[in-house]
């Protein structure tokens, strides 16, 4: 596999047009960096968070992009381990998206914690019983694995591979990529789960608490399932948009619909389990802790969020994408994938922000959360950073092997 690939000339738009494109997203990145500087220099009072809402927009975005970034490990797992060959077209794109999501998430986390310079304390003085320790260990390792998966793509760039050392490193890495895919899968399995476990173990927050097996609450498995369901959906979306923006045919249309089908089936399974978990929690777990189900939904975030999550952004896209004919039309494909991703973002929002809005002390009150522009800026910066990295890698690296064949 390594030898026969040649690095044909990539036709890309003019450098000048590309710079304009970069500068637009660069502006977004700059605005975000300014927001981040304010939060670091003046302190976290710049955000809309307070002692009730200790987690805000950033945690929701973090959890969401890590879940959506699961496309990297899952397609890697399918391609390298289960040898699903039609994924070969977009494995490169998936890895780049995964790298962007994880590095963006970790960037936001360093700004989100109050003392970034002490970040390594979670490694040095680790509390092994905490889900967050597990998340921090796994996300850092997996980011390292993702960089390793990203380097062969870089080293296969035409100009770099002229240097023999880089060429051989690229090839050899590509050779044992299966090992990294396996390690990546294992790590991702744990931290996607632990991100769910982080809120499932809070036995003092009845809205988020779930019983489970051994030390893992059910949300541990639900988060994994929802991550591997939404990962491919995001990959499909990004690849489809790249094709629209560049006007080129990059992957076979069948690959996209196969991926969407895979994502829909997994999402459907996830919805069934989630519904079962919600029913059990509403009738058994919460009442034991003294909370009737309706009690959770009096405040600013009402029952409609649950309806939206399970039906509008849940059942609808899953069913839509399971219909073969629907998958053919671009419009329904994009809407389906988009709704699946939105469903995951909403689920992450409900598990973090809504949990904190519900009072547990009987004489405390419901509170609402409003992020400040600095928070939006940092989130936008991650988006800007992602688009810039993706555009650069699309322009200079050979992400889509079938590009020539399809556009010949």
């Amino acid at each position: 596999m390594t030898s026969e690939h040649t690095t044909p000339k990539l036709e890309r738009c003019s450098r000048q047009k590309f710079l304009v494109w970069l500068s637009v997203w660069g502006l977004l990145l700059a605005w975000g960096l300014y927001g981040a500087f304010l939060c670091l220099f003046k302190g976290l009072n710049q955000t809309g968070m307070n002692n009730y809402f200790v987690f805000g927009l950033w945690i929701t975005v973090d959890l969401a992009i890590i879940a959506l970034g699961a496309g990297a490990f899952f397609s890697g797992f399918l391609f390298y381990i289960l040898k699903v060959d039609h994924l070969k077209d977009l494995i490169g794109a998936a890895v780049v998206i995964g790298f962007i999501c994880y590095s963006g998430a970790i960037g936001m986390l360093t700004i989100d914690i109050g003392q970034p310079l002490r970040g390594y304390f979670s490694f040095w003085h680790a509390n092994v019983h905490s889900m967050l320790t597990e998340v921090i260990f796994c996300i850092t390792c997996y980011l390292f694995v993702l960089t390793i998966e990203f380097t062969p793509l870089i080293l296969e760039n035409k100009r770099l591979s002229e240097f023999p050392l880089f060429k051989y490193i690229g090839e050899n890495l590509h050779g044992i990529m299966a090992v990294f895919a396996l390690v990546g899968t294992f790590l991702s399995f744990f931290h996607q789960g632990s991100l769910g476990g982080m809120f499932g173990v809070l036995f003092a927050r009845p809205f988020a608490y779930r019983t489970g097996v051994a030390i893992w609450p059910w949300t541990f498995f639900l988060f994994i399932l929802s991550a591997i369901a939404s990962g491919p959906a995001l990959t499909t979306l990004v690849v489809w948009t790249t094709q629209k923006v560049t006007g080129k045919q990059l992957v076979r249309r069948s690959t996209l619909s196969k991926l969407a089908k895979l994502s829909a089936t997994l999402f459907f399974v996830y919805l069934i389990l989630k519904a079962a978990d919600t029913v059990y929690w509403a009738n058994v777990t919460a009442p034991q802790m003294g909370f009737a189900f309706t009690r959770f939904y009096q405040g600013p975030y009402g029952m409609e969020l649950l309806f939206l999550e399970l039906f509008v952004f849940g059942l609808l896209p899953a069913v839509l994408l399971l219909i073969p004919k629907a998958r053919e039309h671009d419009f329904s494909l994009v809407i389906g994938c988009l709704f699946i991703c939105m469903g995951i973002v909403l689920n992450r929002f409900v598990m973090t922000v809504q949990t904190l809005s519900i009072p547990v002390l009987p004489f405390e009150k419901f509170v609402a959360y409003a992020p400040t522009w600095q928070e939006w800026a940092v989130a936008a910066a991650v988006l800007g950073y992602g688009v810039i990295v993706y555009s650069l890698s699309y322009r200079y690296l050979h992400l889509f092997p079938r590009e020539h064949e399809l556009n010949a």
Partner: protein
Amino acid sequence: MNVDRRTFVKGMALAGGGALGIMLSPTPWYLIRDLAFWTQNWPWVPAPAPGEPSFEKSICRICDGGCGINVRKVDMRLVRIDGDKEHPVNQGSICPMGAAALQMLYGPSRTKVPLRRVGPRENPEWRPITWAEAIREVALKVRQLRAAGRPHELACITNSAHSTVNQFFERFLHAVGSRNFMQMNSALEAHSTVLALMQGVDEGIAYDIENARYLLSFGCNLLEGWGACGRMYHAHANRSAHEGGNSLEIVQIEPNLSVTASKASRWIPIKPGTDAALALSIAHVLISDGLYDKTFVERHTFGFEDWKDSDGKRRRGFKSEVLGRYSPRSVELITQVPANVIEEVAHEFAANQPALALGGRCDGSLFAGIYELMAIHSLNALAGNLSRPGGIFLQCDVPLKSLSPVKMDEQAEQGFAIPRSDGAGSKEHPLARHLPHNLDAGKVGVLLIHEVNPSYALPNRKVARAIFEDIPYIVSFSSFIDESSMQADLILPISTPLERWDDHTGAPGIPYPIYGLSHPLVNPLYESRNAGDVLIEIARELGGTIAESFPWNNTVEALRERAAGLYESGTGVIHTAEFSATYMSQTATPTEVKSFPTFSDFWNALVKNCCWSDPQCTTDQLEQTLKTPGKKFEFFSQRLQKTFGYSNDLECMPHYHEPPPNPQGFDLLIMPENLITMADNGLGTPPLLIKQLSNDVLSENDLFVQVNPITAMYQGLKDGESVILESPAGKVRVRIHTFAGVREGVVLIPLGFGHTAYDRFLRNKGVNALEIFDAKMDTVSGLAVWWAVPGKIYKV
């Protein structure tokens, strides 16, 4: 950037080698660790230095309660204040204000150097001057007044404490030739008038709450600062029967649910302003059911039965008056308190002797009229509860040696003859001693303000404004930059009680004599001085008889001279304590004054332990408490009849008179609320106390008034809405907070807000409730009556 391949490769090799080398050296790893350590010791985070620990006792002088405090010191820094376990008044209890007093001592609103005002009074600039210049300037002003033959135009307003420094001010004015020495009215001063009228004594009232079993409280905020706050807290501490307490029952009678009402055994909601009717109705039940102390009433009271006066005219007695007009049925209509509740309370009052009927709303200084307090006091007489354990006593004088008489020259004699310019002791207000809220500003040339804030705290707003417009020269002796000193001409920084020598006699409501002496715990932080020393220097500057009236070098000598009286009296005890330098354990033994061999031993013990008291010396003999012409308790006050020449019997006896109807459009009733965390006597409130305010009292700079939800609905207002609260005297902008504890038709506004001076933590927060109260004067006692004012509310 077309670096050719060869150099690029060399660059890569160089970078690779360097990176590997650095990674293998400890530098990056130790740098990461040191940066983390750096975040643990940021230079801008304060690091309080350790030092020699020590404990000292002192007296808290923020209010008149005179609680004893323990102050923990580290080297010369005061670190914490806590109640003194051995002090007879508060026995370890302390209110939040006393606990946070250090924030005022070290606070940003302290006056630091003498300042003279330059520019207009509206927006003054201040020029720092030396103490010598300041003293010379004040002496010059006084000398000009005397030269112009108007020494009586020198006036002074000071706080209500009985302290030597206040006596120095009175003495200074006396020596200069002016009677206009005014003290702000203290909490239970109205009761002194009642005692003067019904018992013929001119002492403060005292309650033996520790031995009482039943308190019938007419609107007194017992647990929010009424009387001596520390003492009331301590009484409440061992009130419950669960831990062997003496199960003191408290019945709270007031229109709105206060903290006291919530903690009371029973709360009786009453229509505002009708307490007198309820008291007399309770008297009706006591008399009609024969539950009153017959022997005491027959032998020791006058005017109970109908009687004939000297020229044969028939006079109605208290009994027939009460039985005639105050039956529970008819009083139910007036007070909206059900008749059966009145009977129940009366029977409980009679059954749980010794019982006390307490008057004086809020912190004790608000009342509807003297007749209301007389009605409440007559209940105590009916129960025969005078000079008996658990009953009414008088405040005993502390046997201090009085200062040598004032020497007056001829000019001083002239000035002294001219009557007071605040109308106290005049024909209209014969019974009053100090009426600062009635001061005629036109008649004052030089005003000395000592440790009070009349511009903020005087209930009569017209006079408060007039003082600072018409009086040409005002000197402010103040530790803090408050509203009054901002509008003064000269600010003289005065050391706070923790930095100076000061004393304090008695405490509101305490039956036995108490003397508190506070010594400096720390050297003055700034160029502040003791007000007594300043007066001595001014007197020396003036020379003549004024200088001779101040024979001491400093205040300590005077204190020492006065304390000699205590030593010679040979009575009372000092709780001498040895600190074992931790928070809790201190062993203290009350040592008799007699047991001190020399006066200097006594003086050193008194300075160290700050408190002398004589628990045995109480007015437990009726002769001591009944000094009317007939040596009897007078239901019908002959003194009232003589001084005011009332012909109608009713006006000489406690009775209830219908308050005037509300003016047009003002259908609500605005009542003040006394928060324990806010200083409402014009003093500043420390930041940590403002932190304690919940956000439905103060939100950013908006003050909340409390209204019943139904009243708010009628007015079409929602919770949290911005409104204008208007009374005939003024209007303020506030926000609404609906609370079911407030009676319908009543608006409750907290006191202590709306400061324009002090520091950024207190300035411009809320509005000064006094702006809309504008006190009237009680016809009999002349004291300010502002317990409520009619008002209206409308959207902004």
